[in-house]
């Protein structure tokens, strides 16, 4: 399949065939398995963004830093495309989890330019 075909969600991927390692955890934070990811692709979730929103992969405390590449390769294999054609999820601030009380505390900088 090409990139174009990923966009056309009417393309069928064939039957979902269970695999022996379907119950293996892929997203460690949210405890999402390989089988759940594969099934989500068959449910029509073709982009990494959709998979995240559907399953919460990469939405946990590590912010997807550990599983991003693993999820991408599973989705790509299911769609029969190269992982490189799948756009990774949007990077969002904060780059590391930050306590609300710290985020709320904006220091007043005394800069040279002030």
């Amino acid at each position, binding site marked *: 399949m090409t990139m174009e075909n990923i966009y056309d969600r009417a393309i069928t991927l064939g039957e979902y065939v269970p695999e022996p390692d379907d119950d293996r*955890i892929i997203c*460690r934070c949210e*405890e999402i398995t390989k089988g759940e990811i594969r099934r989500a692709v068959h449910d029509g979730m073709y982009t990494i963004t959709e998979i995240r929103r559907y399953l919460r992969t990469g939405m*946990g405390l*590590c912010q997807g*830093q*550990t599983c991003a590449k693993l999820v991408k390769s599973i989705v790509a294999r299911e769609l029969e495309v190269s992982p490189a054609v799948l756009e990774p999820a949007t990077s969002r601030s904060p780059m*590391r*989890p930050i306590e609300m009380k710290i985020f709320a505390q904006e220091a007043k900088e005394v800069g040279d330019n002030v």
Partner: protein
Amino acid sequence: MSSRIEEHPILGVQEKGRKVTFTCDGKAVEGYEGEPIATALKAAGIMVHRYTKKEHKPRGIFCAIGRCTDCVMIVDGKPNVRTCVTPLKEGMVVNTQYGVSAEPFEKQ
């Protein structure tokens, strides 16, 4: 045998902070001030830092640099504290984390 490296062939004897005591699940544990909590736990042979929310599976140190968040525990009452990058202080109260709570699942 302790898992601490007393003298390293290249790095020699590494400087440590003063020896302090803290508790893990109520038991007194010794460590060095300023080292990551996870290091002191490792030295004490404690491998399991938390049990996961959905499947109640054990987790411990994985990346050791504060990225993966697998090593989080309840520290001084706060959940989700990354023990691999949080410096140890005298008297800290560290607890195994069950899901996001200090209460074991059967009590939740």
